[in-house]
């Protein structure tokens, strides 16, 4: 008897679809089970009893919503042994989860045969993920239309700030993805981009083989592709299985949206509409919808083939977790440049890596890779001056090599920190962290390669950088407006006029981002200091 399986992803907003659940879905479908995927909490699904429920987890800062979701569904299984919790958090904070919800999470990867059931030796991690489940929910993953894969697992390094050694303790240096990609193409249609989640691909001694496989898969330099005829694809699926509800839903949506492309061809549009009404294809709920589609196939197919979008599209590869600058050399960079990589992400986590990092950038440019992206870890054991230096260094590299490096400052949060509890690194302060975030929020988290933006946003030198960090938040975010209104200069003049002692007190407050001076503390602050702190009062708008 087919089992009823419920897959759950808590309702956090994430960018990438839940690859693990997609594979578990594929696994259960192979076994003939019935799979339902849900994002978040659904009262009607909870109300049913499931043969199995799988809840995936992500980062520790989604702790509350994750725990709540697990508790929400916990009672909808017949036996607690049929309730599974997996994913990143399950590996990093498994014991905490168990204490909280009374379910022992599954730690690590599903990369051994028969990991979930006896009686089969399927390796779930190697199954083609089931993209269909993404159509069961309303949420759209920003990267939902990419291939997502790993060609290596684990990492050769053991960095103390990183969760990878906990989640994927063993380094696996080559996993072929060709079969996966081919079956994705066959089942769901070609995707344009390939997201590779490898933690440290350069650590693999099969690196060349990996690159060659990617080239064979159509991701060589300058790669492009023509999107598949999805009408064809889903009709084929319906032909094989008329109960394929996802294929049915997809075909219906294609039929609904396709006339957009026919607007300029009045005749064809008329013919299309005729076929639609002749075969009663306007309502998906029509009892014979699938049969009618297949009956109309011969009439519709030529129209789709001729008028569908056949424009060539760029095909990009993204080693999403970045490459390790320490492992870059002439040879592997040259090899890397053989695929259509954009952007190339290189980590610049520590100022001590400056030379190594610069060399890697130089090599990338030399091999024709100019679109670079860069994770800049901060709030760890770095200090704010380091941070400024690294950002500025990227600007300088851009000038030198003609590269376009986007910097992504990454705030360090301990792996075990639940719900972003405001960890502050030893050389950082609450105000500085907020200030950095205020600046990069404007550009959705990145620092663009341009020189003028950078020096305006972060200051011309370290001294000015500190000044900006200390600035009231509204003055940072609305820099020009507050400068024009004279607020910024008034703020600075008042600060400069403070006595040494007052300045120490005031700076302490700013660093703590705590501007509320209680009645009994007032005696320690001079009048000038108190009036200066009013700049930080959130009720004062800088548009005045």
């Amino acid at each position: 008897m087919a089992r009823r399986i419920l897959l759950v992803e808590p309702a956090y907003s994430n960018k990438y679809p839940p690859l693990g659940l997609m594979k578990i879905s594929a696994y259960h479908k192979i076994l003939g089970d019935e799979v339902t995927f849900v994002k978040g909490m659904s009262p009607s699904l909870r109300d049913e009893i499931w043969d199995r429920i799988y809840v995936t987890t992500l980062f520790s800062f989604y702790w509350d919503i994750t725990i709540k979701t697990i508790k929400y569904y916990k009672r909808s299984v017949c036996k607690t042994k049929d309730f599974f919790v997996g994913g990143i958090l399950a590996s990093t904070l498994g014991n905490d989860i168990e204490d909280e919800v009374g379910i022992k999470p599954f730690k690590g990867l599903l990369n051994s045969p028969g990991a979930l059931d006896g009686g089969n030796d399927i390796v779930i991690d190697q199954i083609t993920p089931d993209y269909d489940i993404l159509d069961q929910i309303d949420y759209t993953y920003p990267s939902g239309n990419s291939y997502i894969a790993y060609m290596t697992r684990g990492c050769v390094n053991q960095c103390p700030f990183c969760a990878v050694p906990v989640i994927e303790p063993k380094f696996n240096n080559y996993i072929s993805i060709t079969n996966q990609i081919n079956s994705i193409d066959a089942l769901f249609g070609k995707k344009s981009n390939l997201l590779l989640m490898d933690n440290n691909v350069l650590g693999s001694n099969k690196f060349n083989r990996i690159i060659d496989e990617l080239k064979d898969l159509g991701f060589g330099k300058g790669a492009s592709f023509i999107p598949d005829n999805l009408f064809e694809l889903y009709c084929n699926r319906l032909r094989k299985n008329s109960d394929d509800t996802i294929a049915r839903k997809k075909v219906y949506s294609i039929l609904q949206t396709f006339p957009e492309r026919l607007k300029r061809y009045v005749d064809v549009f008329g013919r299309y509409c005729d076929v639609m009404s002749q075969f009663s294809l306007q309502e998906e709920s029509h009892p014979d919808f699938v049969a009618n589609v297949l009956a109309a196939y011969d009439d519709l197919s030529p129209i789709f083939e001729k008028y569908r979008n056949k424009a060539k599209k760029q095909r990009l590869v993204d080693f999403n977790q970045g490459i390790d600058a320490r492992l870059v050399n002439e040879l592997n960079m040259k090899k890397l440049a053989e695929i259509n990589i954009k952007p190339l992400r290189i980590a610049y986590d520590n100022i001590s890596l400056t030379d190594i990092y610069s060399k890697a950038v130089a090599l990338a440019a030399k091999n024709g890779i100019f679109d670079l992206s860069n994770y800049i870890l901060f709030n760890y054991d770095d200090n704010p001056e380091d941070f400024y230096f690294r950002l500025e260094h990227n600007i300088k590299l851009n000038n030198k090599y003609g590269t376009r490096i986007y910097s992504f400052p990454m705030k360090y949060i301990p792996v075990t920190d639940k719900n972003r509890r405001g960890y502050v690194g030893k050389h950082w302060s609450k105000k500085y962290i907020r200030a950095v975030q205020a600046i990069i929020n404007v550009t959705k988290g990145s620092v663009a390669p341009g020189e003028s933006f950078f020096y305006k946003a972060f200051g011309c030198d370290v001294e000015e950088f500190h000044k900006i960090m200390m600035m009231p938040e509204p003055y940072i975010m609305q820099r020009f407006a507050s400068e024009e209104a004279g607020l910024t200069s008034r703020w600075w003049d008042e600060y400069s006029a403070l006595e040494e002692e007052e300045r120490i007190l005031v700076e302490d407050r700013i660093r703590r981002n705590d501007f509320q001076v209680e009645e009994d503390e007032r005696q320690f602050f001079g009048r000038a200091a108190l009036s200066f702190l009013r700049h930080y009062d959130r009720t004062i708008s800088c548009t005045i």
Partner: protein
Amino acid sequence: MESKKPVIGIFSLESLTTGMYSDPKVVYREYVQNATDAIDDAIDAGILANREAGEISVKLNSRSRTITISDNGVGLPQAKALSTLYDIGRSAKRYDKKRGFRGIGRLAGLSYSEKLVFKTSAKGEEVATVVTWDSKKMREMLRPDHAGEEDLAAVIESIVSYKTVPEDIDKHYFTVELVHVDEKFSELLNEQQIRLYLSQVGPVPFRADRFPYYSDRHSGIRKKMEELGKSLEEYYIYLNGDPNPLYKGYKTWITTSKDRDDIREIKFFEEYHENGELFFWGWYGMSSFKGYVKDPEIQGLRVRKHNIQIGSERTLDPLFSQDRFNRWFIGEIHLYDKNLIPNARRDDFEPNDTYFLFKERLEKHTKDVLSKIPALYSNINSAFLKIETSKSSLQDIENKLKNGVNSEVERDNLFKKRDQIKSNIERGKKDIEKSKSKIEDKTLVKKIAETLAETVTLEKKSNELENKIIDVEFNSHTAKALSSYSKEIRKVVYRIFEVVERELEATAAKKMQEAILDELCKGKVK
């Protein structure tokens, strides 16, 4: 008989007749105060060795309705006795030193009895002076419809009589007798009530054996007073011939509104004037604050001047953030400022500048420290209770599970019960965490740590129980067949099955149920 014109004092006679005090028992305080003054004077004069040698005796005779209060103090020599006991409102006492500062106090008994008889003798004199006030007659003469004397002095003259009688030359004493106490004031003759009253108000000693916080050599009240350079001002009052004197009611255990509780330690506070002189000091008992203190003789923080209580256990109520918080404490505040003067009714102080300063300084303790303690402890105690109850409630579920669960409704109820317990544990834990840092008491700190550790176990257990409830076996065949239906529908089906079982014989019922399940499994009806 020597003619002597009585002098009218500062108070009108009328006030004497209607009663000066809101509480008639205050009359005892007045006479006891006078007695302590007389004992002190006797010590000063070398007649008594020390306060232990002083004796104040209070006798109640309910048959003759007489109250007798006497002391073996200095007594009044014949020459002074008459003027002292005749005049109203003119006292020789200076108000800063002595306890009873208004001569009026001596006449307090007038309002409550038919006759007030003073008898006194000083050492070295062979006579005792007896002065009698006929209060019954006085009340009659003062009635508005009474025609006759208009002159108050003349009125008094006609109601006061005196005589001298022979007395032993060595005797020294002062006795006041309230003869024929009015029916309205029968409580004055109730021994139990007067014992309670005097043990609270009177300047009586602590009982060291019942309240070791008094005598503790390192941190006791006596030691504290030594450090502050203050004398004890304790006097021995004997009631109705009881050979044991009266003591303050303080003891190490208390009855609270909730449960019996113990005084675990006492705390002190003190306030000084700007010139460094001690303004007042106080002590209060720390218990587990299970509820407010119910023992009437010790409930509430009380004010004492010269070790005599001013006002009642309610007097300091307004100095707490909520009136009711005072009742959660036991304790005393001893005042030393000569400008703090009890009012004429003796239920509070004269509202002068010193009094307002006193209030302000005392509120620092009562409002800012003490008022916060009951809420803090009450939170902690109710958290303890929550967790304690959770333990047994979890056991209840465990037992139910052992006996078997037979329906989805039963299971739902267990879930609900478990969730309630879980949230109680969580709330209890949160409350304890919140107040934890404010608790100093060592026993309690230990209990907090133990309880917090226990919550971890209990939370784990509640999760295990949840799992057991999920895993419970009943009608598994039916449950599985209905799994894709909502809970509401499942409940309806179970009810239909009950009807089937009731109406059909067993085999037929079983067959019918199977048929229904088969049908329902075929396709989900919405």
